[in-house]
């Protein structure tokens, strides 16, 4: 018997830049879809936290971007792609509390410098690909 593998499912989202009202919508939708698939609650929560942080980052720093969520037999993969300013020093950006968010964003309660560290904490794999002036692509994976 050949073990039949299901085709990975791909969800695609446009993240609207500079719009805090809609920020977080993609992660709510992903959560809904994962629930329908019967993914366990802990995995859903980890995915939605990582996704939410990523979405907010794209809104704050990069005027939005695109998010792709790929659900396969063993993991949920999140790819966040933007054409923003890029991250000059990834190691520094990964430190808790380090933030380049502007004051108007901080006054809204964002920009505490926990975005990237949280994304790393809640996922099993995280890779940042960034070129200054070109954009950033973040790939994260949460295994079941």
């Amino acid at each position, binding site marked *: 018997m050949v073990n039949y593998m299901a*085709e990975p499912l791909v969800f695609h989202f446009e993240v609207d830049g500079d719009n805090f009202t809609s920020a977080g919508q993609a992660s709510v939708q992903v959560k809904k879809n994962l629930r329908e698939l019967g993914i366990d609650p802990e995995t859903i929560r980890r995915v939605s936290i990582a996704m939410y942080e990523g979405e907010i980052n794209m809104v704050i720093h990069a005027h939005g971007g695109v998010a792709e969520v790929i659900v396969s037999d063993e993991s949920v993969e999140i790819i966040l792609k933007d054409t923003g300013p890029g991250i000059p020093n990834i190691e520094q950006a990964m430190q808790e509390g380090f933030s380049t968010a502007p004051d108007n964003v901080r006054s809204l309660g964002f920009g505490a410098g926990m975005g990237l560290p949280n994304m790393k904490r809640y996922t099993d794999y995280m890779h940042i690909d960034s070129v200054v002036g070109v954009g950033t692509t973040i790939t994260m994976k949460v295994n079941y």
Partner: protein
Amino acid sequence: MNTYIHSVSLDSSKCTGCTTCMKHCPTEAIRVRNGCAVIDSERCIDCGECIRNCPNNAKKSICNSFDEIKNYRYKIALPAPALMAQFDNLDNVGYVIQGLLDIGFDEVFEVAKAAELVSDYTRVYLQTEGIKKPVISTACPVVARLIALRFPFLKDNLLPLLPPMEVAAAMAKEEALKAHPELKREEICTCFISPCPAKVSYARNGFGSYKSAVDLVVSMSEIYLRLINVMNRDRNCDISSQSGRIGVSWAICGGEGSALLNDKILAADGINNVISVLDQIEDGNIPPIDFVELNACPGGCVGGVLTIENPYVAKNRLHTLRRYMPIALNSVPEDESYIPGEKFLPDMPSYKPLNRLSDSIGESMRLMAKIQALRRELPGIDCGSCGAPNCRAFAEDIVMGNADRNECIIAYKDLIRKYIREYDGGERDDSQ
């Protein structure tokens, strides 16, 4: 098998199949089939939005009838605090208590009284080390069920204490047994006067393995009509309220929270606001808070669909009524720094994932891929004519074998247009 007994139901003779309720249902539990609304009882959380929005009064809540109290020897009324907010110019809760005695109850135990104790216990609980915060109130049964069905990760945040209605029922019965040793337990009934269908369902189904101590639930609107006939506010009333401000304020959004005397609280009302707050808590996207009070109805319990008065008018009346009340009349004994075991819920209901497509993830993925592909072919205007609340839900219904694609009126129109074009073309062909 689903064994949950719902209070929300449909009078099919009044339903016109208009899709209004279906559009307002927060859990997409309603479909219109053969010109009539159908409720999926697994998805229904008894929030009452369909009752609130039905233009034909076809949606209703099944409660006990008031006359059922006659089957018992000793009848105890448990009025929800929201009842006190239904009367114009009421300056003493005593008139309502007297009215309840006049219409046939032997005793009145205000739920507000128990609410003050629950507030005390909640304050103690919040001091417990190692509990998951924010603690989420379980007083609104809609919210409790919603979390059990849709937010399993927040289950450990639920306040594990019995809600005021249950504490009141248990206390009232014990006290009556003590005061009237001639009575047997089954001869006493506790009758909750409810602002909403969700309390009816809670009393019937319990919560987790907990069985409700409430025997009957009668709607506030039925009791109201009887009360206004007997309430005479010209005569003197020497009965006074059994609770203070804290107790009666549980009827409005923010009441339960502010009773905790803690500023790290959040209170939300309205089912859609409740859902978005829960989503935010789940995403870890809220400021550090200790307690979350969530009310499915607008304005809190005064907004329940079985109440009479507009929730905001009711709220104003409650403010007037409580103005001269003491802060609280009930509290746990000073030396009691722990919560008695019987005030705890024994457990939480097990997670029953709402909307799961299949038991196997692989199969679910295949189904969802089909749904996504189909969804892209549908018009996407979410008109509801097919009998599903939106095109995505319709696509899901088709894939799951519960709907026929030809129900889509837009697709049908395109098909007719195509036939007409072919027919016209055919005619021209003939004439040439």
